[in-house]
């Protein structure tokens, strides 16, 4: 049991904005209204002169599973120069960097003050692997999203116009993979990639199908997610990622999603104007305006930071293009009938026009979308840069002078292609908490996360009020509590907890198995019995209720 006293508490979900008040965490690791005063087991943390936040929530990251492990193998040069975690009696050995090892991932997130992460891309075939890895990511709570928009069993049902069976299939797959929500990556494009094609148009049939289009998949999946009542809306990586001029298809997709819930992932990569690389400019203004008008949507930015990155995505065709563009090495996975995956290491250079525009677009989206409850801070780790660099973005958002000084360092020809120099908005501390914790927790449908009200999980991050010597705040929290246990103190990991795994068990017609089983046995390389992930494989599972809409 813990009492945090004297700190300025920022809990925007409960309307608390920098008020000095005490926070109590009870025996069950949840926030309570008061503690019995005579208990000797209480620990008091004096947070005088400090800021008290709910633990950070990462709504879109890649930290476990087949694709990430493939990337670890493909970029030994990054791991060699990455931060080392030396084996101690308490901690496991590990490597940080852009593709951290499992244990190091937990240490890095907790060390930064983040306590919940959402692994945004899991194929069912790799679900067992993902759950095994997540068990080895300590401290943080995890949820996972299932890749469905290129699953050929489902596309076949949509082609046949069998919506109800498609819905049952999605429900079955979710439960079989023990995942939490639905991710759509380049809908139809990855299926087309298996024919050497892509899906650039929203209303043209996908290669190999005569009726199903990308737009069709987007709408039907969003409807399925709503009808199954999943706590997190459809998580959409749209078509045409990274392509100059993709603003039009981004806005068209938003219009298609009218009346449905959806979360648009890494919107920065979908907000480019111009016709080609030489005319590319920021499309953040148009995208932000359209986004503001669609109150049914949430998004994360997927901002980029200059320096090394590793691009990991199920968007196979884009990755092949990126490999041809950069000449860097390329890895490609074909995940049977479910999805694909591509890996390309990449460097965002501050003297390249395209990268400078990308850098600006991420910040512009965060600054132009003026409802912080709907836009969240991510780098699409490790696609735009390592998650452990979030404090750099936080500084750029909170300090307009610093940001303008950084803008001045961009190549001069960038300036008339972006709107960042004209934006004077600065994030307040409270808004910072919303985009890093309260907002993403709400979008994920995790009611006990992202706030410090009674009943919330005792996930608390306490920062010093003053920036460190380099002028950076929020890099090294003074304390991090997870479920009421002090896990980080004085820059050291003090305690290790095994985080929970969130999953859903939606209702679906079990007879769908009669469709899946024979098709599966005909098409897949493993036996049907080995396909689903067993419940016993999950450590500390917690099922979140579905509320059909």
């Amino acid at each position, binding site marked *: 049991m813990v009492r945090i006293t004297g700190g300025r508490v920022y809990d925007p979900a409960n309307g608390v904005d920098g008020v000095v008040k005490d926070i109590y965490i009870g025996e069950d690791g949840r926030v309570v209204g008061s503690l019995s005063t005579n208990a000797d087991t209480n620990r008091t943390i004096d947070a005088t002169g400090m800021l008290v936040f709910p633990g950070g929530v990462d709504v879109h990251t890649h930290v476990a599973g087949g694709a990430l492990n493939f990337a670890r193998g*493909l970029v030994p*040069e990054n791991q*060699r120069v990455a931060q080392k975690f030396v084996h101690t009696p308490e901690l496991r050995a590990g490597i940080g960097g852009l593709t951290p090892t499992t244990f190091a991932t937990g240490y890095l997130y907790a060390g930064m003050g983040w306590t919940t992460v959402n692994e945004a891309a899991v194929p069912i075939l790799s679900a067992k692997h993902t759950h095994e890895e997540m068990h080895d990511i300590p401290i943080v709570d995890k949820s996972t999203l299932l890749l469905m928009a290129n699953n050929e069993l489902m596309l076949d049902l949509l082609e046949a116009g069998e919506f109800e069976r498609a819905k049952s299939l999605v429900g079955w797959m979710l439960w079989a993979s023990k995942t939490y929500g639905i991710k759509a990556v380049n809908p139809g494009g990855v299926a087309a990639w298996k024919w050497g094609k892509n899906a650039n148009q929203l209303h043209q049939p996908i290669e190999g199908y005569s009726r199903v289009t990308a737009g069709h998949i987007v709408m039907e999946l969003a409807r399925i997610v709503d009808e199954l009542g999943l706590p997190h809306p459809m998580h959409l990586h749209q078509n045409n990622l990274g392509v100059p001029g993709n603003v039009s298809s981004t806005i068209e997709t938003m219009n298609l999603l009218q009346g449905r819930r959806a979360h648009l992932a890494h919107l920065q990569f979908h907000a480019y104007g111009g016709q080609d690389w030489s005319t590319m400019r920021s499309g953040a203004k148009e995208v932000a305006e359209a986004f503001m008008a669609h109150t049914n949507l949430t998004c994360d930015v997927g901002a980029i930071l200059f320096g090394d990155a590793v691009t990991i995505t199920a968007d196979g065709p884009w990755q092949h293009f990126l490999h041809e563009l950069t000449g860097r090495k390329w890895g490609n996975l074909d995940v049977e009938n479910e999805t694909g995956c591509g890996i390309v290491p990449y460097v965002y250079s501050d003297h390249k026009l395209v990268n400078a525009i990308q850098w600006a677009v991420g910040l512009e989206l965060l600054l132009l979308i003026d409802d912080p409850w709907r836009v969240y801070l991510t780098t699409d780790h490790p696609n735009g840069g390592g998650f452990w660099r979030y404090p750099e973005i936080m500084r750029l958002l909170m300090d307009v002078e610093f940001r303008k000084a950084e803008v001045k360092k961009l190549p001069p020809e960038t300036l008339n292609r972006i709107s960042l120099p004209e934006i004077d908005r600065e994030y307040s501390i409270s808004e910072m908490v919303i985009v890093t914790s309260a907002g993403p927790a709400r979008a994920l449908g995790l009611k006990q996360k992202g706030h410090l009200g009674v009943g919330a999980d005792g996930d608390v991050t306490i920062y010093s009020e003053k920036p460190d010597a380099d002028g950076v705040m929020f890099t090294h929290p003074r304390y991090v509590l997870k479920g009421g246990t002090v896990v980080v103190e004085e820059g050291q990991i003090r305690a290790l907890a095994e985080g929970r795994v969130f999953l859903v068990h939606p209702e679906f017609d079990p007879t769908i198995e009669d469709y899946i089983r024979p098709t599966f046995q005909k098409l897949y390389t493993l036996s049907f019995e080995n396909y689903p992930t067993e419940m016993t494989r999950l450590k500390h599972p917690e099922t979140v209720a579905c509320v059909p809409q």
Partner: protein
Amino acid sequence: MITLTLKQPVERVPLEAESICPDVMGALDNASIRALPVYLGKRQCRIDDFFTVDGEKSDDIDVHGDLRKVRWIGRGMTRGKISIDGNAGMHLGAYMKGGTIDVSGAASDWVGGEMSGGTIRVAGNAGGQIGAAYRGSPRGMTDGTIVIGGSAGLEVGMRMKRGLIVVGGPARDFAGLEMKGGTIILRSGAELRTGAWMHRGTIVSLTSIPLLPSFLYSSSYTPTFMGVLVTHLRTLGISVPFDQQAGAYQRFVGDTSVVGKGEILVWNPQATASPSA
């Protein structure tokens, strides 16, 4: 001057000693140097578990003993001098940026791996991957000098971008593999596939060597830049034939199976320079 003397030979399990480096030891007193960490396999130990330590607070480090199982000496050093009286283990001077390393005996693989400055001299033989890119990296050494007195192993200067490597004895296969720039001087030639996949850069061989069919004969001449190089090499105590009455360099361009802007210059004492050159 700091003097480290190996107490007993390191056998079987290698010792990882990147703390033997002027940047780490330079400012420390004797007791702090003794306490610096080294790793015997996965076990963390202290320097004085393996070495007697004399002296303190100096950028000049002398190491005595057979260090063939001691790895990462001088890793990332930026200044000062390390003199090794004996043999050195793998990754000697890897990532180094400045300063000097002298080895009186032999060295193992990955001498100066991905170094970006400074000088490494090895009197005896060295292993493979001298000045090379580590596995997965796009580029090897980007500057600096490596002089090997004896022979060298495989993949000398693999993916090197800039800098100079001189090998006294014969080098094994794949010298200059996927080289992107810089200069390799092979004083006693090399075995097979020299310069395979080289994009740019210069390989000079003072003896005739087997060449890949993807290298094309260009001309027989004595390149002007050789004068500058020879002057520089003289400061390192190395002589290379230049400006003699007889003999010329035969120039081969390649590797034409890739970009093909590299060159291999083979010294031929019987040849004469083409009139146009």
